């Protein structure tokens, strides 16, 4: 799987390259600025791009803007955005086109190499990887305002949180140490309580849940 990596801090770029290579990814290009990223994305046609939000030369959200532009030109281009802070505003922009294949994670998540690599693979496969903090912010904001959400059992809430992060039923089952069948049952309950249409497609399901959580209060 070919990866284009954009990160301006040498230490982090180097670390990410080594980490991804250790897990069998091929680094098509590792760049350190916005213009270089745009060029690399066009030339290399990677399977997934791992991009830091803040890049030179502007040191603003150059990386995010490059990623969004690239996705407009090539819809569905898998992009995993990394940042020192997560903003629901940015998550919303990444998810806006509704086509999946996006990730938005805190840089800290790299600490857990397994989880991080899993997220990269998920995004490359057209799935979603949202940082637990984004989901927690969404849920905290809706607390006590959202009656359907309040009707979920604590277990269902847990499942919802993991699902919104973009994890598959199998992964959720593994995480909560229950069977996949049990998770399927929880999922059906959640969708019924929130009034969402059930879908067999994992990615669609995640996007539906995220859209629900990001609805206006």
């Amino acid at each position, binding site marked *: 799987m070919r990866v284009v990596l954009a990160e301006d801090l040498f230490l982090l770029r180097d670390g990410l390259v080594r980490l991804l290579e250790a897990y069998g990814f091929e680094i098509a290009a590792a760049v350190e600025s916005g213009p270089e990223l745009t060029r690399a994305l066009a030339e290399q046609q990677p399977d997934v791009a791992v991009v830091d939000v803040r890049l030179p030369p502007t040191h603003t959200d150059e990386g995010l803007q490059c990623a969004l532009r690239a996705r407009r030109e090539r819809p569905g281009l898998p992009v995993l955005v990394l940042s*020192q802070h997560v*903003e629901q505003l940015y998550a919303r922009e990444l998810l806006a086109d509704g086509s999946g294949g996006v990730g938005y994670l805190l840089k800290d998540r790299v600490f857990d190499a397994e989880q991080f690599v899993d997220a990269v693979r998920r995004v490359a496969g057209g799935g979603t990887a949202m940082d637990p903090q984004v989901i927690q912010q969404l849920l905290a*904001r809706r607390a006590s305002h959202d009656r359907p959400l309040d009707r979920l059992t604590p277990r269902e809430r847990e499942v919802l949180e993991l699902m919104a992060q973009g994890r598959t039923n199998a992964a959720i089952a593994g995480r909560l140490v229950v069977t996949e069948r049990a998770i399927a049952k929880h999922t059906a309950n959640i969708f019924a309580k929130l009034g969402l249409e059930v879908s067999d497609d994992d990615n669609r399901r995640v996007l539906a849940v995220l859209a629900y959580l990001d609805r206006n*209060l």
Partner: protein
Amino acid sequence: MDTHSPDGNFAARARTSALTSGRGLALAVASLPEALLCYTLCLVSIALVPVVGIGLFTTPWAVRWLRSFADRRRALAAKWCGIRIPSAYRPLPADGRPWALTYALLRDPATWRDLRWLLVDATAGFATALLPALLPLYALEGFALAAGMWRIYVGTTGEAYWYAFVPVSGQLPALSAGVLGVVFLLLGVRWAPALLAVHFRLTRALLAPGQEELAERVRVLTETRRDAVDSSAAELRRIERDLHDGAQARLVAMGMDLGVVEMLLDKDPAQARRLLAQARQSSADALTELRDLVRGIHPPVLAERGLGDAVRALALRLPVATEVGVELAGRAEAPVESAAYFAVSELLTNAVKHADADRVWVDLHHSDGMLRISVTDNGRGGAAVGAGSGLSGVERRLGTFDGVLAVSSPAGGPTMVTMEIPCALS
């Protein structure tokens, strides 16, 4: 007088002085009735404030007229003579209730200074404006006398006609009156612009803000500077403490854990693994704390996107429905953006925590060199500056940028806080 100047120069000077004389005449004739009328109206309006209260409604109107009259004179001074007359009207309350407006207008020393100026303008001002026109006109009279007009006067009254200090009773004194006329004309040509400038200097002396207002400005600047220094020092202390007790301590703990891990690696791998997990947790916690600290110093989204999106991101973190309207064509300077951001942040916190609101509206726009922000909520109201609500802190911080804050928060709500910060967008 420069008699050696070439003819062209003299002609140009004559044209200038003719223009100046015309301007002075027009100014004197047009402004005298307006000055008298305006003065009368203002005095009557102000006198009627305690009497029947009618003055509450007429005073703002009359004083506004007075100010526009004075502003027009300021513009003429700059245009005609290059004399700049600063104006220092205090900002008027935004809510526009007549009594508040009248009170603010009457408390402004500029109002009384303008009124004093009107009296002088109608007398000495009138005369000085007229002088540049009077000199050539008087010269014309001298020429007319020399040309034989003295005969008509002396013929009908039988007495000598006084032209300046010359009693004209025959052709010879009439001729000297003519010569005197030439002198007056030359004086007029030479001095007309200077005479009109005298008028505007007089105006400036009366209209420009006085020493005590400058002193007041200095006092305000000193105070806001001290506040700014104090609050930034306090901020640095807080950051130092947070780093010392937080991230720094965690890194120390992490280092110690790693040291022990090194020692245990062969002897007790299980314990070493436990400590490694602990070290990783410490580093994650340190990062979280640093992130929160950074958000408190300068939120990343503000640096990345500017005020509009930073406020939008802030609204997305609030547990209440918040509408954000942004009309900003560019970005303000970083310190202004930061002050505005933290002000909005404080107000939103107030709305949710203290006012118990369930809807909030934030509006940001920039016009006429002023960043205007309003935060409105449907909570229980009753907010006031200086009631320990954090509003006075916001007001102080905005003060550093000459920004102002107004609160309208009747008991029972809604609360509307408006802020204005003078700034340019880039």
